[in-house]
């Protein structure tokens, strides 16, 4: 939907790397305009009254009860305006929500994410495209997908509540022990992005860093899967640990929509 409106507010921080990220960013921009309008008017009125009606020698205040109809309209009309904007907004919200959470479009592949204290296990389907078969590839904290392919995900947890979160996709979903929760995403930009656990899960919650790598094509993905099976793949985490925690050897400026770190890694595939 962000062909109608794109203020680029969220993308100034995080690339919109999934098919529905643009819709969600659109909602942010739309709400910003709507609430921004009300916010500015209300604040302007407040400040105007504060200045215009400050105490002055010899000027007495008015006596207004606010119970008369002619007085009430001054709060009622803005009130109806707020309602109208709210209803307008709700329509868009529901449309996007239905697409993101209530549908499961036809998929090219499936992945399973299992959260536990304190890491993520990911199961990739392998060549046969089916989970729970011999050729599944299991990784820890390192999820691989292919650009422009629609994925279904199955979320599970071994112990407590976790949350499968990929900011670049604008995706979050709690995982619940004892249940499998399904959803979908379709990556649209290649690169490596943070994958977070966004539900407090104990002492190691801060240390559940994981990453999702979006490969530009099938070839790059297959090479990685082969390398993982052979044990020769150097995961994103190995690389990150070599870089050391702080300070990081790069800078990111807000105007860039792709983090250079992601571009650097993508170019190495």
């Amino acid at each position, binding site marked *: 939907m962000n062909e109608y409106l794109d203020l680029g507010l969220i993308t100034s921080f995080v690339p919109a790397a999934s098919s529905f990220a643009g819709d969600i960013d659109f909602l*942010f921009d739309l709400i910003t305009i709507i609430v921004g309008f009300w916010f500015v008017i209300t604040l302007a009125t407040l400040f105007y009254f504060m200045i215009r009606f400050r105490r002055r020698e010899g000027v*007495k205040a008015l006596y207004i009860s*606010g119970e008369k109809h002619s007085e009430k309209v001054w709060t009622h009309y803005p009130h109806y305006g707020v309602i109208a904007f709210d209803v307008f907004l709700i329509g868009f919200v529901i449309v996007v929500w239905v697409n993101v959470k*209530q549908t499961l479009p036809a998929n090219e592949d499936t992945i399973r994410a299992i959260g536990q*204290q304190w890491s993520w296990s990911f199961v990739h389907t392998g060549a046969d495209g089916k989970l729970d078969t011999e050729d599944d590839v299991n990784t820890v904290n390192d999820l691989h997908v292919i650009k422009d392919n629609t994925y279904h995900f199955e979320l599970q947890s071994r112990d407590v509540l976790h949350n499968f979160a990929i*900011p670049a996709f604008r995706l979050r979903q709690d995982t619940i022990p004892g249940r499998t929760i399904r959803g979908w995403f379709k990556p649209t930009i290649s690169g490596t992005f943070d994958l977070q656990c966004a539900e407090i899960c104990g*002492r190691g919650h*801060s240390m559940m860093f994981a990453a999702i790598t979006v490969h530009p094509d099938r070839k790059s993905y297959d090479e990685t899967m082969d390398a993982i099976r052979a044990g020769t793949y150097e995961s994103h985490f190995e690389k990150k640990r070599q870089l050391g925690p702080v300070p990081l050897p790069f800078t990111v400026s807000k105007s860039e929509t792709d983090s250079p770190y992601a571009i650097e890694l993508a170019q190495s595939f």
Partner: protein
Amino acid sequence: MGQQAEAILHETEAHDAHHEMSFWDKYIFSVDHKIIGFQYMFTGLIMAAIGGYFAYAFRMQLAWPGEEVPFYGLVDAAKYNMLVTNHGTIMIFWVAMPVLIAAFGNWLIPLMIGCDDMVFPRLNRLSYQIFLVSALVLILSFFVTGGGFGGAWTSYPPLSAVAAYNLTNWGASLWLLAVFLEIVAFLLGGINFVTTTMNARAPGMGMMDIPIVVWMINIAVILFMASVGPLVAGAVMLFFDQRLGTSFFIPSGGGDPLLWEHLFWFFGHPEVYVVLLPTMGIVAEIITVFSRKKLFGYRTILYTAFGTGGLSFIVWAHHQFVAGIDPRMANVFVVTTILISIPIAEMLFSFIATLYGGSIEFSTPMLWALGFLVSFLIGGVTGIYLGASALDVYFHDSYFVIAHFHYTFFPITIIGMFAAITYWFPKMFGRMMDETLNKIHFWGTFIPFNGLFLPLFLVGMAGQHRRIADFTQYPDLASPDLQSIRIFATVSLVILLLFQFVFIYNFFNSMFKGKKAPLNPWKANTLEWTVSSPPPHGNFAELPTIYRGPYEYSVPGREEDYWPQHLAPNQ
């Protein structure tokens, strides 16, 4: 009844004069609503210092990860979780509720409705005693083996239910026990507020003559009572899971973690209005007095308060949009959540309309009240982003949520508290606060508050998630730009905390050495301003009769621009 009551009151006073009360009876085991109000207030302020100290420690860790925090020490991952959990828990249960509802409710209600105490003074004392025990139990939880509970103030199971998961075996149970006791204390306290307001009003005070702050506190107390029941049941269930091995919330034993979430948030959402409404009431009292204007639309404000309260019971699952609930159910809650902004907007518009045509004096209480309106407006509008379920898919458990609820809770709790204290201080202690220091404190709090939380919207937009001790480990969040924002926020917090010393000094210095306060320094209409400062035991030498509403300011044809409620029509 009036004459007989007066005679009895004089008899009581004479009786008291002969019966020298010991220090213990007068201040520690008092049944006087004013002393009990102070007990709640001082306990709440001490807990606020602890809660603020915890925020200082974890924000210092976020700005300079891995460094020892001055006056605290090293904040490791376990401590971090304990700090954020107890910061939230303390601020809501041991600061907002006791100061706004219990302290000011207790202190103000009997005075404002013209009677001599709450209807059940000994029950009132008991509720404070249970509350004090709850605070001590919480503090105890920090010192047991394993440390304080670290599963967030929301305490979701199975993390909170199983010691092997949370690694704070007794910390978790003591935390839960403390919350349970606090709830019991407030349920008991609530009995007094509602029955006193309903039954003990002075003759002539109709329902629409009750000062709006008294209404608001009562509605808050009713909301609390109606919403907390299921959580009490849930707390018992969680406690049994923790200590007795039941599995109400543990899937491996047949239980359901989502059930806790529903029980918690069914309370948790009305709870925010439980604390909001009293502050709205306090702000209403202040803006009418300092603009010399009648409250705009008393009935409208009252009905929207009831409306907000009622609606607050059907929005709770907006906290659970991505929790694993049926996504179709989410749509219902989007509608109710976005619609609840409407009565609140109406209330805010009414407050702003009250200023129209006024004669506004920018005293410190008025600055706090106006500061509340500005900040709460930001908090309120940012709630729309989160009520939009599809957008919450991105923002759930991110810093955008933190910034939103601090732009609501901080104005409610901290700004509301300072507004009320600076306004009623002269009556409570018989002396005036130093106005210059008050103003310095106001600006030194208000500006850093915005410096602290406004940038957190930005890091939230960057996808930064909550309850993380060190963001430099996440490549997408580790940029120097984002880290600079975190440092800026932390520095703002430190400045904010430092300015609180100005208030502490002013508060205690004025209490003992401030200029003696006149009876009614703000020329207000409500009854508390008619008694001496501080009010005596029994409040009124002569119990008043009421002739008008509380907001008759600038009545045309009247020389004085105020008309106290108790003055006869010809006075």
